[in-house]
Structure formats: C-alpha cells, structure tokens
C-alpha cells in the first residue's frame, strides 16, 4: 500500500471527561494535525466506526475541514477498529482522498452507554450496530459484551483445557506494562496473579473483573496520507504495509454465536491469512503486536487464530513470557485495553506508532514492524 500514518493525537484517557464526544474528537484531531504539521484545510477524508456518536458534519464544521472528498465508517464495533486504517489507506491508494483523519470518540465510563452496564435497548449512539443482540441475547439477561463473549470463551476453555489462571497470566503482563505507562489507567497500580484470581466473577468460568478492559472516556485521531506526501512532513512516516478485514458469514459484532466452532476466532484466522500469507510479511518478523483485548480470553484466542502459536497453545505461549519485551512477541506494550484504557481499540494504534517512532515507555529495541489487530480487522505498520 502507498499510505502512511503521519500524525497522531489523543485526549487524556479518564473516567470522566466532562465534555462531549464531539469536543473530544475535535481535540484529538487538532492534536494529530499539530503532530503531523498539517492544517485543517489539508484534510479531505474522514473515517470512523459505525458506532461512533460524532457525526462527520459536526466534526467538519468544528475543526474547519473545507471540502470532504471521502468518508466511510467501519462495522463490527471495536472489532472493526483497525479497519479505519484499511479504509483510509484504500482511499489514499486510489486517489479518492489525499489526507484522511480516522477518529474514535467515546465516553464509555461517564456517558450513557457504559459497556459494563446492562444494555436492554439499542443505543441511540449505536444505531448502525443493529438490533441483533437486543433480539437474541437481551431477553435472556445476556446484556453486556462480557456476557456475549463469555459464551465463546467458555467453549474455548472446554476445548483446550484453559483455566482462569491462564488468562490471569496474560493480564499480569499487561498490567506490568501499564504500571510503567503514565498515560495508563494502570499506571503505578501493581497487580499479581493472586489479585487476579481473587477478583470477583463477572461471567464464570472465564471472565473475572480483572479480565475486563477499562471503561474509558477519551478520543484518538490518526492522520493518514500518501507516502510521497509523508516524505515532506516532520515525522518519520509509519507506513501501512498491509491492512485487511475478514468478516465471516453469520458473524455479528460481539454477540457472535452462530459459527459452528466458537473455540476458534475464525475471523482472525482469515485476517491472519490476509495480513501475512497474501502480503509477504512474516509472523516471525513482527517486532511487537497490539491485539484487541477487550477481555483477556480473546487475547489468547487471537494469538492462536493469527498463527503466533498453535490452537490451544496460547496459555503456554503466555506462561513462557512471550508477551514480554524480551519474549517472542512483545504484546500490548502500553498495557492494552485492559491496562491502559479502552478507546475502542484505536489507542492500540497510538502505541504501535510510538513503538515505530521509538518513543514508547516500554520500548521494543529497534522496532520496525508492528501488528495491530482487532479480531477481524488489522494492519501491519512498518518503517520501510
């Protein structure tokens, strides 16, 4: 692909932003413009999630974009987060747009749609996410992303003999990263496996309180342009080497219960095929990975599905410290969505950019290729 990330911006991540999602998106976008050395009038493309509450028109009139040539939204909730990179890169590749802003703004803690609260009606700010969970899960008290995903995670545990402590060992690593990250919820909050194992059940036998990401207020914005134009801008470009989506037959957003075998995240299997096997990038050359960890079980399941270890082997891959800085695949070095915060996945791209710029708190030495994935969307970001 011919596109690169040239600027990133974010608000603080908090539990009470005290301002609207639109304002948060404006602040993050201006942060990205300043980082990139670009002006509002340079932006002619807009990409977000179908579930984002910020309307394009309002962002345009607030930040002062002058002429929008391209816009799109990615489905699949947070699983679509890295699809923003695919859409942006595709728009740059084919000339539809010259500078794209990709954004997500969320008040998942102080706003009206907390992900940990019981959801019994379609959210007014998630109109595009449809009614499927409301029809087929809500009448049974299956009211949250944790409860939706727990049904899959229990089957995964059953298939491969995985235990809660196996998930806990991954969380301990994420929280160790977060402990050192001043921008993280988990900054200076040490956590042990014993803490994890004694935290209360959310959905037994797979999700304890400490397996859950942090409901967070905040916004992240990314600016993407052509590699050619990137060469004239101040930051070292972070090239979108490959970007892909794999949304399979019968899949839903998170209430994803109708594929025959739920012990494998088959969308991520297909995604790995597209990102690696079709692109020429190699799994063993990835220097760090940012993998969507809304709940710890899906981190292990994605490690397997993406092909970094065999099916059922993620518990051993994690226990052998392969997610650590000196492991085979340093993963979610910001603390992940569990340790840093949950801007619906897009903050994982910020960390990938920091790794490639060499500015991460938990820096992987000489990182040159970083994977960012969210279940069924992903990208390989590089310095080449």
């Amino acid at each position, binding site marked *: 692909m011919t596109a690169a990330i040239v600027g990133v911006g974010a608000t603080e991540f908090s539990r009470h932003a005290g301002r609207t999602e639109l304002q948060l998106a404006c602040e993050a976008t201006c942060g990205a413009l300043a980082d990139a050395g670009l002006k509002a009038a340079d932006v002619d493309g807009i990409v977000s999630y179908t579930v984002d509450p910020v309307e394009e028109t309002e962002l345009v009139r607030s930040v002062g974009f002058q002429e929008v040539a391209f816009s799109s939204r990615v489905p699949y909730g947070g699983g679509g987060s890295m699809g923003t990179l695919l859409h942006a890169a595709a728009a740059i590749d084919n000339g539809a747009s010259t500078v794209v802003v990709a954004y997500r703004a969320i008040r998942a803690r102080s706003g009206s749609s907390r992900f*940990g*609260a*019981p959801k*019994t*009606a*379609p959210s007014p700010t998630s109109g595009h996410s449809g*009614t*499927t969970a*409301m*029809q*087929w*899960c*809500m*009448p*049974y*008290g*299956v*009211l*949250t992303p944790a*409860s939706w995903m*727990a*049904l*899959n*995670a*229990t*089957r995964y545990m*059953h298939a491969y003999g995985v235990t809660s402590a196996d998930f806990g060992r991954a969380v301990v690593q994420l929280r160790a990263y977060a402990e050192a990250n001043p921008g993280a919820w988990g900054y200076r909050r040490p956590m042990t496996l014993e803490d994890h194992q004694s935290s*209360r*059940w*959310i*959905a*037994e*036998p*797979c*999700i304890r*309180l400490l397996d859950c990401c942090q409901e967070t207020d905040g916004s992240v914005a990314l600016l993407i342009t052509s590699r050619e134009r990137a060469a004239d801008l101040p930051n070292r470009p972070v090239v979108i080497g490959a970007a892909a989506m794999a949304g399979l*037959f019968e899949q839903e957003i998170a*209430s994803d*219960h*109708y594929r025959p075998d*739920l012990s494998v995240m088959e969308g991520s299997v297909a995604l790995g095929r597209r990102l690696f096997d079709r692109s020429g990038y190699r799994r063993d050359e990835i220097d760090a990975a940012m993998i969507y960890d809304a709940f710890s079980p899906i981190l292990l399941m994605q490690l397997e599905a993406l092909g970094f270890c065999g099916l059922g082997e993620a518990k051993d891959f994690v226990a052998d410290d392969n997610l650590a800085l000196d492991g085979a695949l340093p993963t979610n070095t910001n603390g992940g969505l569990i340790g840093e915060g949950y801007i619906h996945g897009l903050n994982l791209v910020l960390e990938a950019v920091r790794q490639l710029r060499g500015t991460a708190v938990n820096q992987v030495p000489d990182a040159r290729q970083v994977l960012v994935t969210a279940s069924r969307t992903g990208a390989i970001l590089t310095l080449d």
Partner: protein
Amino acid sequence: MRGQNNSIYYLILVRQAPIVTDDSAVFGDAAAEGRLVAQRCGACGKLRHPPRPMCPQCHALEVEAVELSGRGTLYSYAVLHHPQHPAFEYPVLAALVDLDEGVRLVSNLVEVEPADVAIGMRVEATFVPTTGDRAVPVFRPAP
C-alpha cells in the same frame, strides 16, 4: 419495533420482551404461543436461525416456519454475576444450545444448579413469560 419494554414489570422479576422486527417475527410470535420454531427454506429446505428474509444457500424468498423438538445439547454457557438487572435472578445461567435439528439458540438454563452445568448435557425447551404477554424459550436438563 414491537414488544416494547414496560419497566413496571421489572418489580416482579418478569423479563423484558424481546425486540421483534418484521424480519424476526416468525420466531417471537411462535414463542409467545409456547412454540419453538425455525425458518426452513421453501425451496431447498435449509433450516436457519436467526430468522432472515432470504435463504443464504439458494436465495429463495419462500419460507416456512417449522416446529422444532425443543431437544438439544449444551454447546456452551456462562454463569453471569455482573451487572445485575432487576428483571433477573442471579446468577443468570446463559447458554448456547445446539438443537437436534441443527440450529443454535442463545438462551438460559433453568431448573439446574450452576455446579451441575456441563457442556454436552442434554436439554429440553420450556417457556417463560416476558412483559407484553409474550414468552421466550429457555432450557432445562432433559430427563
């Protein structure tokens, strides 16, 4: 949208009626009468759930509702502790049931203790009321 919430019923532990759309009414309307149905393609005979207007196998629009045995196998489950909603008793036993006819439902297990739940156990359907004079299928251990 039909089957809208009437929050006063929460006080007596009656669960909220499912949202029913024109595309899914076949399931919800049958359940309200205590019948468990799935759509079957009128052309190729493929069963499907959740309901949808077109057969994904042959694109036929002809469709019939067929009554299911209500018997199936527990594919997966979760014991839900948090968050708690006033319409339910906790912990809630959430279930994925693979019906013998070959479709899968999200539902609940009833008449069983959490410690006795095991993937692979045989279950059978029964119905519980919801607000709006409707009902939804749940499952109990099969004898």
